[in-house]
């Protein structure tokens, strides 16, 4: 067995440096994940309080946001995908693609339009010939508020154009430390749009003072709820992206370590075999002479 020791050594060096990189990426992802989870938790306080407020109203949303009524002739579905800009996160983006594919299978590809946040998925969908209306990078913390406001405005405009019968958000949420597979979460139409909701809050409905008037407060609350759902999708997809990357990089690091160990074993065996052979040659030579 003539094994090139140089080549092995080179390979080992390559594997070792790859391992260093994957390990670093894993640690960075871990830090980012922690921060993203914190943000997700903090934003939940607002979200729950807003939800509690909406529950205190009996009047149906239809009465305060009539412009958000569904259009009966609409055929298409608008999907907002939340994914990553960078790879190395395992099946994270692929799972989002699958959800879109499933929708296209069910509804017909020509009836699905996409607004992509996170270019990995946006790019893939475009390459596959989907109708991608926009494909943007994930905004960083500074730009996030502005970008999500614009997104909300664009989506509401799209809805009132009457072209879509549904607007869904597709993103991966986080359950503790487990990444949940992405699902299509309905954004519009608002559930129970036309219905009176039953009294749910602990305080009797109708006994509130409202300023300026009950309808204005509910309208403000409903619109904010819609915006907040976009924020929630964004934050959750962020946290789950980092967890996915942590896991992928952790696996890659472990693979690299295993391969390095096995290469090292091979190298040592080969080195020993070479030394043994040299000794044999020397001894044989010595015997031949003497």
């Amino acid at each position: 067995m003539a094994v090139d020791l140089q080549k092995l050594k080179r390979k080992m060096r390559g594997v070792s440096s790859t391992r260093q990189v994957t390990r670093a990426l894993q640690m960075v992802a871990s830090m980012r994940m922690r921060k993203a989870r914190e943000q997700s938790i903090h934003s939940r306080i607002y979200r729950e309080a807003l939800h509690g407020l909406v529950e205190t109203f009996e009047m149906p949303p239809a009465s305060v946001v009539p412009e958000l009524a569904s259009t009966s002739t609409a055929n298409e579905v608008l999907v907002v995908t939340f994914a990553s800009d960078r790879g190395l996160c395992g099946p994270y983006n692929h799972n989002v693609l699958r959800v879109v594919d499933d929708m296209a299978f069910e509804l017909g590809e020509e009836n699905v339009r996409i607004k992509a946040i996170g270019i990995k998925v946006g790019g893939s969908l475009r390459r596959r010939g989907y109708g991608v209306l926009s494909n943007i990078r994930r905004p960083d913390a500074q730009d996030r508020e502005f970008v999500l406001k614009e997104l909300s405005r664009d989506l509401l405009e799209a809805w009132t154009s009457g072209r879509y019968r549904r607007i869904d958000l597709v993103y991966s949420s986080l359950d503790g430390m487990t990444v949940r597979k992405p699902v299509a979460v309905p954004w519009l139409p608002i559930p129970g749009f036309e219905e009176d909701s039953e009294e749910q809050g602990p305080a009797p409905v109708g006994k509130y003072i409202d300023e300026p008037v009950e309808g204005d407060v509910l309208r403000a609350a409903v619109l904010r709820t819609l915006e907040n759902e976009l924020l929630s999708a964004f934050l959750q997809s962020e946290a789950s992206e980092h967890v996915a990357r942590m896991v992928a990089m952790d696996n890659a690091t472990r693979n690299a370590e295993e391969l390095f160990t096995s290469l090292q074993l091979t190298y040592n065996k080969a080195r020993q075999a070479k030394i043994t052979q040299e000794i044999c040659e020397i001894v044989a030579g010595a015997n031949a002479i003497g």
Partner: protein
Amino acid sequence: MPVTLKLCTPMRQVAKIEAEYIQIPSSDGMMGVLPNHAPLRCVLQPGFVTCRLADGSEELYTVSTGLATVRDNEVVVLADSAEKGNEIDLERAAAAKERARERLSKMDSSVDMDRAELALQRSLIRLSAADKVQSL
């Protein structure tokens, strides 16, 4: 019997304070809340939220638009944005908005990152291929 102020924005809880008297900028005008106030829901206009504490001191927050509820001696302010103190730095906010617009319209320069990522992806594929060959 104190009134509790919970001031939240979509991204964080800005304050949770027990006070004797809270004032919020309702759309119908500044509204004062003492203990046992009637239940109330209101739309907010930009302005100040102030709390007078038991020791006589005052806490002040600047809020933009939003909503507020008063119930059971709790004032929950859901502000679109809020800051402690009374500094409304409009200039800074406008500058930040401009920067955001600029950044979004510019071509992004993350080519290096993409190249590095591709290189790493390739070596990971090689790794796993090598791994499979080893185990044959």
